[in-house]
C-alpha cells in the first residue's frame, strides 16, 4: 500500500463526514460550535450569519448588543430580522428616541406591529408628559411582554440591569420562545452576562456597521464583521453624491473581501 493509498483510505470522504454529522448530532466536536437544534432567524447579512451559531439570531434566548453610550445603531442590525420574523407585535421597551415608523415601514416592518412600552426618554407631545420610569418597571414590562403569547419579538433598552435580572429575562424568553434583544452600553462589556450571544457594535470610518462577537456558543471569533447595513436606496443616493464606498481593505481577510457587498 502506497502512502497515497493509505491517505485515501483513512481520510473521510466529505459526504461520509456529513453522514457522520447526521448520525452523531448529539456529539459536539470542539472545533465546531454548538448546533443542537437551535431555532434561529437569519440576520439578513450572510457575513454575520456565518459567524452566529445556527446561522442567525437565536429564538428563545437573550441576545445582548453593546454600544457606546449615547449611540444607537441597532435598527440597521435588527430590522431585517424583525421584519421577517413572525407577524405579531414587535415590542420596544424603553427606546431612547422615537422610532420613525415610515422609515421602518419602508424596510419591511409595518407600523401596526410596533408597540412602545415605557418610552420614558421621549414624550411625543408636550401635553402628555411621560415621566421616565424606574428601571424595575422597565424590566417588569419586558418580562410581561415576553410572557405574552401574541408578541414575536422584544427589543429592550435597559440602562441599568444586573446579571440576575438578565437571567430572569433569558429564562422568560426561553420559556415562551421569543426573540429577545437587550441593548446596553459598552460599559457592561466586562460584566458577567447570561446572554447566549453578545455583540459589540461600532462604526468604521465609512459609517458601516462593525460587529464584534464577544460571546457565542462556539469558538471565539477574532475578526470583525463589517458591512454597510443600509437600505439600497440610501446606498445608491450616497454613491451618487460621491460618498466613497470602498471597503476598508486593511481589516478584511481576503476571503471575506470577495463577498463584500457592492
Amino acid at each position, binding site marked *: 500500500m502506497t502512502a497515497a493509498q493509505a491517505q485515501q483510505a483513512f481520510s473521510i470522504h466529505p459526504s461520509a463526514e456529513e453522514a457522520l454529522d447526521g448520525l452523531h448530532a448529539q456529539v459536539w466536536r470542539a472545533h465546531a460550535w454548538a448546533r443542537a437544534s437551535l431555532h434561529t432567524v437569519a440576520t439578513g447579512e450572510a457575513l454575520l450569519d456565518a459567524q452566529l451559531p445556527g446561522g442567525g439570531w437565536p429564538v428563545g434566548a437573550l441576545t445582548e448588543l453593546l454600544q457606546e453610550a449615547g*449611540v*444607537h*445603531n*441597532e435598527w*440597521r442590525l435588527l*430590522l431585517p430580522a424583525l421584519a421577517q420574523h413572525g407577524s405579531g*407585535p414587535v415590542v420596544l421597551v424603553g427606546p*431612547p*428616541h*422615537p*422610532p*420613525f*415608523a*415610515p*422609515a*421602518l*415601514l*419602508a*424596510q*419591511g416592518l*409595518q*407600523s*401596526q406591529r*410596533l*408597540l*412602545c*412600552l*415605557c*418610552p*420614558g426618554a421621549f*414624550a*411625543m407631545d408636550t401635553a*402628555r*408628559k*411621560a415621566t421616565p*420610569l424606574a428601571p424595575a*418597571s422597565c424590566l417588569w*414590562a419586558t418580562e*410581561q*411582554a415576553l*410572557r*405574552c*403569547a*401574541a*408578541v414575536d419579538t422584544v427589543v429592550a433598552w435597559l440602562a441599568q440591569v444586573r446579571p440576575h435580572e438578565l437571567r430572569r429575562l433569558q429564562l422568560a424568553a426561553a*420559556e*415562551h*420562545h421569543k426573540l429577545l434583544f437587550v441593548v446596553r452600553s459598552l460599559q457592561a462589556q466586562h460584566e458577567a452576562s447570561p446572554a447566549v450571544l453578545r455583540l459589540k457594535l461600532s*462604526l468604521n*470610518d465609512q*459609517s458601516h456597521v462593525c460587529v464584534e462577537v464577544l460571546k457565542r456558543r462556539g469558538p471565539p471569533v477574532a475578526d470583525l464583521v463589517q458591512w454597510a447595513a*443600509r*437600505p*439600497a*436606496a*440610501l446606498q445608491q*443616493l*450616497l454613491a451618487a*453624491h460621491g*460618498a466613497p464606498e470602498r471597503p476598508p481593505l486593511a481589516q478584511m481577510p481576503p476571503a471575506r473581501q470577495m463577498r463584500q457587498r457592492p
Partner: protein
Amino acid sequence: MSAHWIALRLGDTAPTTAPVPSDPLAALAWRVLQVTPWVAQVDDALVFDISASERLFGGRAALLEHLGLSGAHTGAVYWAQGATSLLALGRLAGVPPGTCTPFPPRGPDMVPEIAADALPLHALTSARPHLPTLARLGCHTWGQLRALPRGGLARRFGADVLAALDQAYGLRPDIYPWIRVPEVFDAPLELAAQVESAPALLFGARRLLAQLLAWLRARQLGVQRLELRWELDARRGNAQHLDAHHQGSDHGRLELHTAQATQDMRHLERLLGEQLARVRLPAPVLYLRLRSLATQALPTESQSLLPDSVRSGDSLHQMLERVSARCGAAQVLCAQVYADHRPERMQQWQTWSGAPAPVQPHRKPAAADSAADASGALYPTWLLATPQRLLSQRSGPQFHGPLTLLVGPRRLEAGWLDGESSVLRDYFVARSARHGLLWIYRQRLGSGDPDGTQDWYLHGYFA
C-alpha cells in the same frame, strides 16, 4: 309529566384560598338557572323543578351531573328531592344535620328517601310555631297531622298549615316568586372589619368578583367596564378629600376597563390590584359595592377536533392593560402613520386603547401600500421628538465633532396651509464619526427667524 323538585342548602364553607362569592345562595341560584327557570328561595334553601329539562340534558342523572360540574362552590351543598317542593325541603330539613347528603350526588342510589308520612313535623315550616301543641296531641309526623280532621286543623292552627300540607302532598300547585338573573350586576358587600389601606380592599373585592363571575356565566356575558365603590367611615372628617378617586363625598370609586369583554376573573383581579395599589384612603372603609357598567355577549369557544398549536402566555390585550394599569396609560404607545410631507407629522405615537386608533381630523392616514414608496428608505430610523439645535461654526454644523455633509440639500417647503406650523427647510445627510449618518436640516432664510441667521438642527439618526 310529574314534577320533580330538588332542594339545595348551603353547608359551611370549607377554608379555601379561592374567593367565596359575596352572596353564595344567589350565585348558586344563578348557576341552577342554567338548567331550569323554576328556581325559588324558600327560607335558607333553594328549590327548583327539573322535570321539564330532564330530556334536554339526557336524563335526571346527567342533569344533576351537569349541574354539579358547571361551577364550583367552595363549601358543601346538601340536597334532597321529592315530588313537590315542600317534600324535598322536608326531606332536607327532616334528617339530622350531620347526615345530609352532599351535592353533587355520587353513585346510583342517591338519597335514602324518607316516606312523606314519616317526616317529622319540624320539617314543615308553617307547622313550626305549633310544635309544642302538636306534640301534646301526640302528633309527630306529617302522616299523623294529615290524619287529623281538616276543618278542625284549619280552625285550630290556621289555614296556612293546611295549605302547606296540601302543597306538600301535591294537592295544590307549587308557586313561588321565581328568581331571575338581574339585568345589571350590582352587589354590595359589608367587610368583616374596617379596612384602612386600599390594597387590602382587594380581599373583599375578590368575593364580589366571584359573585360577578356567577352572574356573567348565568347571562353568558363578558364584562367590559366595571365600577368599584367604597363607602368611607362617616365619623372621620373626609368631606374635603379630593383626588382621582374621591370627589369630596363619603365614598370613593374607581373604574376598570378592559379592551375585550372577558370572564377571566384572574385578569380583572390583577388589574384591580394594580389600580388599588395607587389609591390612598382618607378614612377606613366598611362597605364595598361592585357594579357592571358595560357588558357584551361572549361567544363560546368552539372546540376543535385537532389539537391546534396554541402558544402559551397571556393575550396581548391583557398584557398591555396590565402594563398601562401599573405604569400609566402614557407608557403604552402605538404608532399611527399619516400622509404628510413634514417628517414630524408623518407619524404619531399615541396611547394604546385596544380599538383602532381614532384618526385625527384634518390628517389623512397613510395608505397601507406606502411601503412601496421608495422615499421611505431615505428617512432616518430614529426621529427626534423635537429637533435638536446644533452648534454651527464657520466650517459647518457640529455635533460631537464636525459633521461632513454627504447628501443634500433636499428642500422641504410644506405646511403653509396650516399657518404657524409651516416649514422651510433644507435637509442634508451628514456623517459624524461617532454617531454615523445623521439627518440634519438648515432652517431657510425667510422662515421668520428674527435675526436672519441660518440655524442647523439635528432631526434624526440613520441608525
